[in-house]
């Protein structure tokens, strides 16, 4: 048992994966008509959540309470941008993709500039940027003309290969790459170091500014990409397309076992965390509960999972951690 504990402490994604399994079984019992088709619906929704959540994971891992609150506005803006530029033609797709990615990277760069140069706490900086982008989306909304989606983009956003949604393949790919980056590259190691203790990382010679900037760039780019795919999926952009991803991206990251205080990430956990969230909603819907109950249960489960996984502070040398963002957890010892 203690062996499992030890292993689970190092592989924090396991709890959310267990949750996914349980809910799946529950769904199976509830419906008794669980088909691959409606499961792939869950997978598709989860995949759209995974992309921005992976970006959020990188930002959260930079530590000091950093969170990217500009993700929903980035998604919305890029949804409009892609629809307006591509305008349903395959030939414009590369231009649209480039524009969307450029916008995402620019947003990430702006966030990084505000956080690193002007020393504005990430939460506030991204909040402010989000406000500005919201206006951008409103303006883009005025220009919005077309509801046609380019066929190539539509394939990625809506179609399946051998029953597996293409966008899920994309999401799994993103998770695999992120996992590799976090575990096996110099960048992942230095990012983890910065997230655990910025002063220690700086004194060890880490260029923390560069490391943190890259995290924001990744987050911006992934959110922008997601916005483009969501627009293609919905067959058009609308102002609220990004809104759910504010809370859900954070929830998926944390449910997956990434430490909200930074310095400990699990990309695999983001995948299972996103699936868990979507499955919760689906289960409630299948159970025929009202939208109010849906929200209620989702909230209670988020809090419960956290209460359980914080395990009375077993894995918490982090609360004594240097530079530990008190905004997340007041300092304390037993």
């Amino acid at each position, binding site marked *: 048992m203690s062996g499992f504990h030890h292993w689970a402490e190092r592989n924090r994604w396991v709890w959310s994966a267990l949750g996914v399994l349980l809910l799946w079984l529950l769904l199976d019992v509830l419906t008794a008509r669980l088909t691959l088709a409606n499961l792939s619906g869950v997978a598709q929704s989860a995949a759209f959540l995974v992309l921005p959540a992976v970006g959020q994971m990188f930002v959260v891992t930079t530590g000091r309470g950093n969170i990217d609150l500009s993700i929903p506005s980035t998604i919305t803006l890029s949804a409009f941008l892609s629809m307006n530029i591509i305008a349903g033609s395959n030939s414009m797709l590369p231009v649209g993709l480039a524009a969307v990615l450029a916008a995402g990277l620019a947003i990430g760069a702006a966030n990084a500039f505000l956080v690193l140069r002007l020393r504005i706490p990430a*939460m506030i900086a991204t909040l*402010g940027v989000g406000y500005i982008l919201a206006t951008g989306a409103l303006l883009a909304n005025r220009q919005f003309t077309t509801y046609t989606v380019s066929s190539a983009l539509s394939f990625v956003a809506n179609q399946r290969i051998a029953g597996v949604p293409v966008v899920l393949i994309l999401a799994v790919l993103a998770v695999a790459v992120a996992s590799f980056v976090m575990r096996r590259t110099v960048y992942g190691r230095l990012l983890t170091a910065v997230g655990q203790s910025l002063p220690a990382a700086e004194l060890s010679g880490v260029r923390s500014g560069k490391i943190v900037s890259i995290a924001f760039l990744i987050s911006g780019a992934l959110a922008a990409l997601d916005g483009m795919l969501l627009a293609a999926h919905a067959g058009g952009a609308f102002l609220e397309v990004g809104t759910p991803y504010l809370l859900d991206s*954070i929830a998926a990251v944390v449910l997956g076992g990434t430490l909200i205080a930074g310095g400990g990430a699990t990309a695999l956990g983001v995948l299972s965390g996103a699936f868990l969230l979507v499955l919760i909603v689906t289960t409630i819907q299948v159970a025929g509960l009202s939208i109010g109950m849906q929200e209620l249960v989702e909230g209670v489960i988020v809090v419960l999972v956290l209460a359980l996984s914080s395990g009375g502070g077993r894995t918490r040398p982090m609360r004594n951690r240097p530079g530990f963002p008190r*905004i997340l957890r007041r300092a304390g010892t037993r």
Partner: protein
Amino acid sequence: MAQAAQRLHDDPMQRGGRLYREPPPEEVQPVVRLRGIGKSFGPTRANDAIDLAIAPGEVVGLVGANGAGKSTLMRVICGLVQPDEGSFEIAGETIDFTHYSPNAALARGIRIVHQELSLCANLTVTENFMLEEPAPPLAPASGWRSRFRERARRETEEIFPGVGLRLDARVEELRIGQRQVVEISRAAATGNLRLLVLDEPTSSLDAGRSGHLREWVRNGAAKGAAFIFISHKLHEILDVATRVVVMRNGRVVWDGAAERTSVATLVEQMGGHPPAVPAGSAPVARQAENAAPPLVTVAGVAAGLNFRAGEIIGLAGLDGNGQRPFLHAVRRAGRRGVAVAGISCAAEPGFVSGDRRGEGVFPLWSVLENIVVGGSVRRNLLGIVSATKERRTVDPLLDRLRIVGSRLDANILELSGGNQQKTLVARALMHGSRILLLDDPTRGVDVETKQEFYRLVREIAAEGALVIWYSTEDAELLECSRVLVFRDGQVTRELRGGEISEEAIVACSFIEPGGAGARGSQAHAGPSFVSRLVQFAPAGSLVVLLVAMVALNPETATPFGADLLLSAAVPVVLVALGQMFFIGGSEIDLGIGPFAGLVSVLSATLLVAQPFLGGLAILLALAVYAAMGLLIELRRMPSIVVTLGASFVWTGCGYMLQPTPGGSSPAWLTAAFNWNVPDLPTSVALIVIAGIVAVLIDRTRAGVVLRGFGNDARALRQLGWSAAAFAMLRYAIAGCFAAAAGFSLTAINTASDINAGNAYTLLSIAAVVIGGCELLGGSTAPVGVVCGAVTLSLIGALLGLMGISTDYNAAVQGLLLLAILGVRGAIRLREARA
């Protein structure tokens, strides 16, 4: 010797022969008596069969290497740690450990001054003195401020005559030495003081203040109080103590009168080797001085200084006279490749800090990971890492640093301070620089490891590296080939070879220009003019906004116009004030808007239909809200995520009560928000009242304590304040503000919508931050928050008056937020550099 000592306490039979014990003073009732105290942490036996009795009037000097168990023993005495076995009496009363807490210890006159300062930096000296007397959250406390100011003045002057502290200055504005003065005086102010434990009390005090303290301890002992004095400075122990207790490996190995021992014997008993480093014996390649090109050059000192490979340069002087800034200037110069403050440095140096917890270790990592990261720093970011491969590169270091290979996979925090320090040196060596900077690296390291450390530094220098070493222990500087003595940020003296001696260093530290007397009176300059100006930014932008609006449309200045415009600001102000109490406590509530929405729904539905049930439901909601605070505190969960989850719960409840917008406002509620005083816009009055209430709450004792928790919760807990009770209080206060916002929403809209509150969450955070509160907690600024909230909510109206589409509303809000914070950040940066 070490083996003999080991045998000595392995075999109790031999104790009689070797272990000296003073006959316990049976005739007087001891203040505390410990019998057979034992405590284990996992496999570590921190305390083992400890017997100790302390009589009134005794000053017990407690010494021992790091990990000897001193701290654990003191924590047992002060109720912070419950021992596994043994018994404990205070003044003859047997203590039941299960009911023994810091509070209980305090009630019996037992008080500890911790090595790490436990002051709240964001509170004033007076307020910190208040924290010394824990009280329940809602206890009445009128006139506490003047009472504690008087006490602070009396106590600081009694122990440290002439210290002249500014009692209404925040502690963060004081120098480290002054902070220690506050810490000690505060503990000494405890009413019925029976036993005062001083854990390294003089680490930041200069010689004069340290003398004052010892004088005071002697006087206190003469009056019958007992003291335990813990220090690594053994001559201080011998000076002040009447009796010395030596601990080693969790046991007491020597206990006797102070005059029967000496520094040398104490060191030996603690398990160290007597320092055998005669002056000038450091084996340093001095001949290299003129041959190699300098690695570090310092301009601006009389003839300029050149440091070369093979040298060990010591930085000396009283603590806080510019040594550390010098070290960091060298680091930055090497890193950026440009001169910083006249210092140029040829390569990026490795850096080892003595503040292991604050700026040394990566706490989630193993020892191995903590070491190899040093080598990763210089690699391409996309390079592949493999811990197993890197293990081999670490092997050669292990021998040299005497780190046991089997411990490589242990978490770094499981190691003792000394071993953590060696890990950090290994990391710096992996970095592979020719320059090594040491920032008081042996702080809190046991004697034996220190000796190893000295040997290591000599080796590193001998292999052709330049070592620059800042130390607060003058004896260590004998290891150096050159010593620079700092005074008021300047190098005032360079000592070479034979000139280096402890006496010379002390002499140069004190007798140089400026005089020792100038130190204590030096306080930080107040905030600069510009930063004071920025404090008025929230009020200023509000004024500008109002002027612009009146200029555009004079109607806005009429009571009716103002009321109309500002009624939308009322809920924003209320939610923001609630959020302020969270942010002041280093937390953020991402569910505060939905909570206000829920209360609005409750008040527009249930409260109308069934007033009693509705009122009950709202009270219940507030209780749940406060309980959430308790849950967060007890389970130590991140509030950001819990409140995020809770926001779903509030919204869900709201939907169930009222699936679509509707309902109506109770008549009394509408009246409460729409009463009329001639010429006074109701909404203005409401906003002002809300602000005043917040200011009043903030200024009460409970409000101060809440800010204290935001700054340093651990310190408050150790003083005996109930974290759980105050967490609930914080959530209850914030919940009341949010509930008031919910009521105002219902009254203003005469209907409710569960989604009406959502937008307020982020807006409230923006308002609080614009208002001047630090996101990292501990600061509250109710007036600024009110201004910020009103400004943010008026922007839309201003745009309307200017004929600009309200599409731009959000963008202007965002830009204002970023602009104010950007300016604030830039100023802080400039001040930090200055």
